[in-house]
């Protein structure tokens, strides 16, 4: 690639956060690189420093606890999620969404945190994280805060993150027995493709949650809906959330229609 930058790979989180504060907006964090390196190559971002965040051991940790729930470190890859037995038994929706993300090689590199920090409307992990009521842990050299995923996205490719902050983890509350979630992504082909729309429906405790990708400037989700909500009420709630656009993939009318259709099918599956 033509753009030149310096590269650094800190081995301590405190060093990384200090660096982020010193370099400021000219720094870009490199995890899987599946978005960043393509964007640099295409001239869309021009960092003066690329900071590799993978050399810090805790970045790769997946911690599952019977009371605290699940915590995913900032460099956990999509395939790490797919190979984790705790996630397979208790957080299936995460795996269902992870499975639909890009191709095998990309899943070996792409990270869960990167997928939400990139803040694409078509994020595959966001629907699962929204349905499962995940929180984002954000740190800077001076402060630490957590933000619910539903407040994390502020627009297309925009989040609440400030230039000196980074996401250091995602936490998901423990799922009750009987929790169930399904995801369906409309694509042009069965294989590796960006979504035309995506819908996730989850039964969390005694409520339902529905999340949608590629149908608004950000991934969006309903609040907790009662389990016995009628299909038409649920469809109306989803329809009110979305604001699809027409683009090269399809028209906004088709997007709206397919969001409803997928929601209807998934509601039946989750309720069965």
């Amino acid at each position, binding site marked *: 690639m033509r753009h030149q930058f310096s590269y650094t*790979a800190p081995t301590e989180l405190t060093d990384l956060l200090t660096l982020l504060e010193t370099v400021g907006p000219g720094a870009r964090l490199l995890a899987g690189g599946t978005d960043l390196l393509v964007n640099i190559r295409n001239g869309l971002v021009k960092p003066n420093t690329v900071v590799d965040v993978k050399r810090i051991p805790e970045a790769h940790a997946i911690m599952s606890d019977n009371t605290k729930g699940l915590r995913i470190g900032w460099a956990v890859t999509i395939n790490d999620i797919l190979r984790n037995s705790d996630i397979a038994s208790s957080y299936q929706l995460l795996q269902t969404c992870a499975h639909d993300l890009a191709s095998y090689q990309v899943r070996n590199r792409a990270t869960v945190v990167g997928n939400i920090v990139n803040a694409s409307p078509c994020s595959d992990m966001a629907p699962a994280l929204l349905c499962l009521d995940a929180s984002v842990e954000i740190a800077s050299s001076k402060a630490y805060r957590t933000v619910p995923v539903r407040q994390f996205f502020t627009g297309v490719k925009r989040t609440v993150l400030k230039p000196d902050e980074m996401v250091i983890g995602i936490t998901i509350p423990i799922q009750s027995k009987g929790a169930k979630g399904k995801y369906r992504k409309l694509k042009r082909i069965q294989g590796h493709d960006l979504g035309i729309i995506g819908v996730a429906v989850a039964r969390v405790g005694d409520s339902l949650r529905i999340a949608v990708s590629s149908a608004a400037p950000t991934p969006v989700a309903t609040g907790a809906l009662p389990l016995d909500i009628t299909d038409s009420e649920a469809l109306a709630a989803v329809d009110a959330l979305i604001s699809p656009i027409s683009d090269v993939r399809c028209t906004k009318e088709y997007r709206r229609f397919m969001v409803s259709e997928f929601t209807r099918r998934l509601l039946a599956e989750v309720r069965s």
Partner: protein
Amino acid sequence: MRINVTVNGIAYEKDVAENRTLLRFLREDLGLTGTKEGCGAGECGACTVFFNGKTVNSCMVLAVEANEGTIETIEGESSGGMLSRLQEAFDRHHAVQCGFCTAGMIMSARELIHHTPHPTVDQIKEGLEGNFCRCTGYEQIIEAVLDVTGGYTAKEELIHV
């Protein structure tokens, strides 16, 4: 930046520009031109190599990231002048036409077989979903993988992919 990297079992110490991709490093600095550049954006899989034991698109990895790491490429697939069983199966089933996708296909197939020693057709399609062949001979490629994993019967009808 100076990096130490082991490629196909050989240790290298090289100076490399920070903005050089692993793909360019392999092809232009080490002369390992078996790995190809297709799209340069992680769509086509022609540049697939093993990085620390996992397949990656080398067009989306910086060479400096591979410091102290291990890389395996198509040049390391055969040994002592003999093709690997996977390469032989590709040959036997005419799974190579222009050959541009083949290096990446072999890498992805090897990773698939490592995790799933006896894959079904669907599992093969999924394992190779990140590798495009535009000639296109997906059926022969799937047959080759089935053959090397003991799942091939000559009369098996493969669904068009």
